[in-house]
């Protein structure tokens, strides 16, 4: 069976701290770099160790030639370890996995709202949108200024809870504010579950809205069935790893008061 998924031994090119606790790691991973689409993810595992035991999921941030770039906030065991990896050290990447954001067409206006490690998807979406002649606008929210990352060549409208940079308020409030003047054809969102729930609540009935969910995942391939996302029609669950991580906001129910 022809496959578009690869297990690739990937060497670290470099890791940079780009904001508070926030890193970019660049890998040489030619097969995955050539195949990945916006919103798809990779499972990253550390060879020759049982700690961490399971691979970690990362949305791909950007590709450059044969390089795959990951963006993440170092909060747990896996991300902390990754943030300390040196040039030429190796990981195993499994991907690209999952269903990403829909393709955009020429002239289509898309607003991209991100927060936290969800900011990872901005560069890859913007670059695909530009290639297809769509018109993307990026919105990026954080609690405070030093958590924000300025990606090269991307114009971003920032929002901070404490008003230390850009709009004073959440990224969703910023989007609502902008809606007074114009409306996009689509909204793409990626970030913490409370933010996604708020995006879903505010926009799903007005604008085609797609959200990339964050959920614990063990395998990323549909083997374990460990990453269910509740279907709004009450018939059970989707799997974040295969049916998602990107869903039409109207078809899923995010955990109420998700923490």
């Amino acid at each position, binding site marked *: 069976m022809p*496959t578009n998924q690869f*297990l690739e031994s990937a060497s670290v090119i470099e890791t940079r701290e780009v904001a508070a606790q926030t890193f970019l790691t660049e890998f040489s991973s030619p097969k995955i770099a050539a195949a990945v689409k916006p919103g798809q993810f990779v499972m990253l595992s550390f060879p020759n160790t049982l700690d961490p035991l399971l*691979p970690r999921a990362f949305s791909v941030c950007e590709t450059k030639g044969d390089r795959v770039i990951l963006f993440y906030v170092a909060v747990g065991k896996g991300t902390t370890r990754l943030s300390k990896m040196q040039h030429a050290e190796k990981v195993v990447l499994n991907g690209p996995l999952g269903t990403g954001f829909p393709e955009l067409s020429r002239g289509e206006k898309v607003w991209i709202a991100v927060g936290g490690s969800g900011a990872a998807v901005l560069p890859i979406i913007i670059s695909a949108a530009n290639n297809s002649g769509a018109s993307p606008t990026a919105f990026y929210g954080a609690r405070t200024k030093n958590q924000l990352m300025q990606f090269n060549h991307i114009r971003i409208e920032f929002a901070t809870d404490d008003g230390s940079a850009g709009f004073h308020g959440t990224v969703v409030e910023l989007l609502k504010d902008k809606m007074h003047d114009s409306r996009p054809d689509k909204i793409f969102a990626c970030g913490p579950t409370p933010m996604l729930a708020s995006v879903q609540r505010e926009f799903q009935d007005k604008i085609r809205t797609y959200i990339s969910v964050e959920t614990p995942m063990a395998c990323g*391939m549909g*083997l374990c069935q460990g990453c269910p996302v509740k279907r709004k029609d009450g018939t059970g669950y989707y799997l974040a790893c295969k049916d998602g991580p990107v869903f039409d906001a109207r078809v899923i129910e995010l955990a109420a008061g998700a923490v």
Partner: protein
Amino acid sequence: MKTNLRVRIGNLELKNPLMTASGTSGYGDELGDYFDVSTLGAIVSKSLTLKPKIGNEPPRVTEVACGMLNSIGLANIGVERFISEKLSKLKGSGATIIANIAAKRAEDYLSLAEMLSDRADIQGLEINLSCPNVKEGGIEFGSDPKMLGTITRLARNAFPRTLLVKLTPNVTRISELAKAAEGEGADGVTVANTYVGMAIDIYKRAPKIHTITGGLSGPAIKPLTMAKVYEVRKSVNIPIVASGGVFTWQDVIEYLIAGASAVEIGTVLFAKPNVPEELLIGIENYLSSSNLENISELIASLRTGIDRAPTH
């Protein structure tokens, strides 16, 4: 030297001792993206139930030290859709197929065994009596030798090919259950399912998985299951399929020496979906360097000198 990796369970000859553990390889179709599944001894399906099951609420999985806790709740498409949608594709991949079944009533086990017995491409049946996740089923059947014996007999009468009974390790004496399975005609026992475990988020003071407790798998449980395999080996004569924490080829060899004829791999597939390739190479190299022609020479070859195992 040409090594022979073939092992036998009932009438089923496996080309090598590697099997997948139920619930860790879907219906076999996803793994085909990573390696040739026909190189496995057998693929064991997810637990199939009479009706489809949506499974438990999230979170269903969490990592713990050298292991993982899961509580999937037997999410599966049901036996009918497995037969109509998955079986021919799996068969086409050249895999040897063992169907795993689960139910909450004895008569449902019988119905499942009957439905699957008609399909000659299903070469084996593995009965799940030990999934610790589902409130109504599993644990009661699996921890009581009488109930286990009843289900085994029903399945044995309905299913003519290789029959495995998967045992729960969450009992005082697993060998009593193995004897009950052997007594009612099982061709082998799978030792064992996951261990009941629990993990708490201390900041939320909440369980890390929705069902509070779940099944512990991974390298953390390997020594525990090793002891169970050894205990069962001394109690029954039917083949044992070891299942618990295999990550390396050395783990496979260790289980064979302890008394297993075959080994199921599970959690490791999540991190390394193509791991069977390196396990098979490691096993072959070990046999060659040990001057062993047949892998079966390893089975239950533990050298204890004298029988100094403590009585538990």
